[in-house]
């Protein structure tokens, strides 16, 4: 069969992504395997009888072999069922626990809103800063931006967050310090309340992303073909647009994907600071109470996002690679 190299490489990459996801799902699934034997007692409380604990273990399917439970778990996840939370259960056997999906779903939308808002602000700023500092390398402007971003990436997210709260919520109350939103919050109001968390994330992301963009562009501009273009009389603009840009998509896509993936992680801390009802906060609460099904569900969602983003970056790199587009 004669498959175009681009298609072939993309299919390979997709296959690799699926394989990674498979292994990742096994790791996340095995979280429940590694729990100590008496965890049922711990969750249901000391007063729980042997029977209730046994019933609980049966409900989790712990009497079945691991591979069967894995298949059931994955099958459930594919149909949108991630099991039920450990919390809300008690010793008497009364079960007020909720489905993990019901816990995650509304919060996922909140988290995506926050991450999306940040990305919309941060990506253009970071790219503009990165490209301009690369072009005016070692100028005062470059040095200033560099030192500033080097400082910012050294700050823990919660430090940036609290400085912003101190300045923009406490001393000069412009924005609310707590980002309470729910389903009924209108969009404008939602954006207003999400301003501080989004701003925090933007500051952190822009710093990382700008530095990586700058490095990628400088690397590109050092290519011999760029010097050749200059020697054949191309102006600075022409060098950038015609010669650097067509080869810059892959590195830029990688930088963006890497930072959006980083955003996924940064969101956890920022959500906790601003008590923002997102998946990150849910996950931290679940870790504290050792509510494994919820932890698993959240981890799976974060991992899928992360793998997807990297996959997209790879695919952009593949479809803009002239060597693959125009095979010998």
């Amino acid at each position, binding site marked *: 069969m004669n498959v175009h190299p681009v298609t072939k490489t993309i299919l390979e990459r997709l296959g690799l992504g699926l394989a990674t996801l498979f292994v990742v799902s096994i790791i996340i699934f095995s979280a429940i395997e590694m729990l100590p034997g008496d965890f049922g007692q711990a969750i249901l409380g000391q007063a729980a009888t042997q029977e209730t604990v046994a019933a609980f273990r049966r409900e989790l399917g712990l009497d079945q072999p691991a591979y069967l439970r894995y298949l059931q778990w994955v099958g459930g996840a594919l149909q949108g069922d991630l099991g039920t939370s450990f919390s809300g259960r008690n010793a008497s056997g009364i079960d007020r626990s909720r489905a993990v999906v019901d816990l995650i779903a509304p919060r996922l939308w909140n988290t995506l809103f926050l991450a999306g808002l940040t990305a919309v602000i941060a990506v253009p700023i970071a790219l503009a800063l990165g490209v301009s500092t690369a072009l005016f390398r070692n100028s005062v402007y470059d040095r200033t931006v560099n030192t500033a971003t080097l400082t910012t990436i050294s700050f823990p997210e919660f430090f940036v967050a609290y400085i912003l709260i101190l300045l923009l919520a406490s001393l000069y109350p412009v924005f609310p310090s707590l980002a309470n939103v729910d389903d009924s919050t209108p969009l404008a109001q939602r954006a207003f309340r999400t301003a501080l968390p989004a701003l925090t994330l933007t500051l952190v992301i822009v710093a990382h992303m700008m530095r990586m963009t700058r490095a990628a562009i400088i690397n590109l501009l050092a*290519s*011999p*073909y760029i*010097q*050749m*273009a*200059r*020697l*054949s*009389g*191309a*102006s600075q603009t*022409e060098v950038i647009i*015609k*010669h650097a840009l*067509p*080869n810059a998509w892959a590195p830029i896509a990688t930088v963006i994907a890497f930072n959006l993936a980083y955003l996924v992680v940064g969101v956890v801390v920022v959500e906790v600071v601003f008590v923002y009802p997102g998946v990150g906060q849910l996950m931290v609460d679940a870790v504290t109470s050792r509510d494994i099904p919820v932890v698993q569900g959240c981890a799976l969602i974060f991992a899928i996002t992360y793998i997807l983003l990297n996959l997209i970056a790879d695919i952009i790199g593949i479809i803009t690679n*002239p*060597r693959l587009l*125009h095979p*010998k």
Partner: protein
Amino acid sequence: MSSNSGKGDILLEIKNLEIEGFSDEKWHDIVKGVDLTLRCGEVMGLIGESGAGKSTLGLAAMGFTQPGCRIKAGQIKFDGVDLAKLSDAKKRSYWGTRMTYVAQSAAASFNPAHRLIVQTTASTIRSGSKSKEDAYRDARGLYETLNLPDPKNIGERYPHQVSGGQLQRVMTAMAMSPRPDLIIFDEPTTALDVTTQVEVLSAMREIVETFNTAAIYITHDLAVVAQMADFIKVLRYGKEVEEAPTRQMLATPKEAYTKSLWSVRSLEKEEQKGGNSLLSLKGIDASYGTAKVLHNVNIEVAKGTTVAVVGESGSGKSTTARVITGLLPQTAGSVEFDGKALPKSLSERTKEEKRRIQMIYQMADTAMNPRQTVGEIIGRPLEFYLGMRGAEKSRRILDLLEMIELNGDFMQRLPGELSGGQKQRICIARALAAEPDFIICDEVTSALDQIVQEGILKLLMRLQKELGLTYLFITHDISTVKAISDQVVVMNQGEVVEQGQKTDVFQPPHPEYTELLLSSVPEMDPDWLTNLNAARRAG
């Protein structure tokens, strides 16, 4: 070629040019006051060894300096305008229109994202001197003049889709497309194999003659430049050594330095018959993964002689060395050393077997650990193979340093503190320290300047005489083969094409490939290329 020298108006006049570059936190002079005059339609050869400043000078002729360099003093008058004083924007109006550039590495100098014809015509179309259709048509014509295959369509290809030699010719077409007054050729054939070099050289010469374009041809190879240039300027350490018309320079060079540029060619070893066989390769096949790279290779090396293995890149000559050392176990055949079959892989060989076969590499830079002193580098084999320690070891290191014409002062130096020739000598000493019988020399002189090459070759020959060493000398350079070998093995695409005593191999009639290879090596004769092309057309 030389008929029109001295005619035409002055096109380029460089006066007292000084250029400096920034490194190690200091400014260093690279070009130290050079004058240069070039008339319309003339071709000047700029020749010199590494560090002579020839590339810097060539770029400066366009008013361009590499990042990290600057023009300190002097003027660069092109058609009456001093480029050194112009702004970048003004200089750009000359680049790609009236002056163009052909770089050494065509593969790296083409933008991978654009079609060849787009890049060939970009500056012509930008300047507005031709419409897109005209420029494309003209480019196809240039491709044809340059003997490129399928000139109608090759422009539709991307850089990675054509070979290195073709790419170099496309770059020449790109340089010629705007019909410039001046082309700078910066070592355009250095990265090519000799047989490809001839084709590219012929194509370039023809096109420069056709359009009567002035050119500066930069190279380190005098024989190459002799085919191209009307007159030659020799540079050394950023200064002019001498300048003369090509024929005069080859016939009667004024400076001793100029003469040393072809010093290796004057060496010639007296052929030895040699005694018993020390090493014999019998029916060797080898492969990298699934790709078979050696096919039934048989080579005999007699004790006390030098066997030169000659071939172009991809001929399998270095792979042969890897099989002998055990780095690449052969898939068939056997390596017999001193009458005994050697185990295939390195790990199965005894320390003694490893000791008796030593290797010297092409790049002395990467063959020595930059963090070890010369004493440690030479001392390790002494310690490892011969169990020497303390004062005995130091004495032996001193002996070895003297043997390679260096002295005890070098013991504490790091490789970074040595010159190229000294580094290669240390590598020779390291090989000698093991007291081997057989040394494989893999292109050991090809990264060195001519005069240094001569020194290394003489040293190797002296050591052979004194210590009765046997060499397998891998090289692509025919003059080196003549200088050092007793027997010659010609390889092509993983097979031995011909082997025998040196005089026999160099004596016609040759097998087809040997003929092609030998005839492609440029000679110190300005008419060589003309004669060769005439002969090849006739043949």
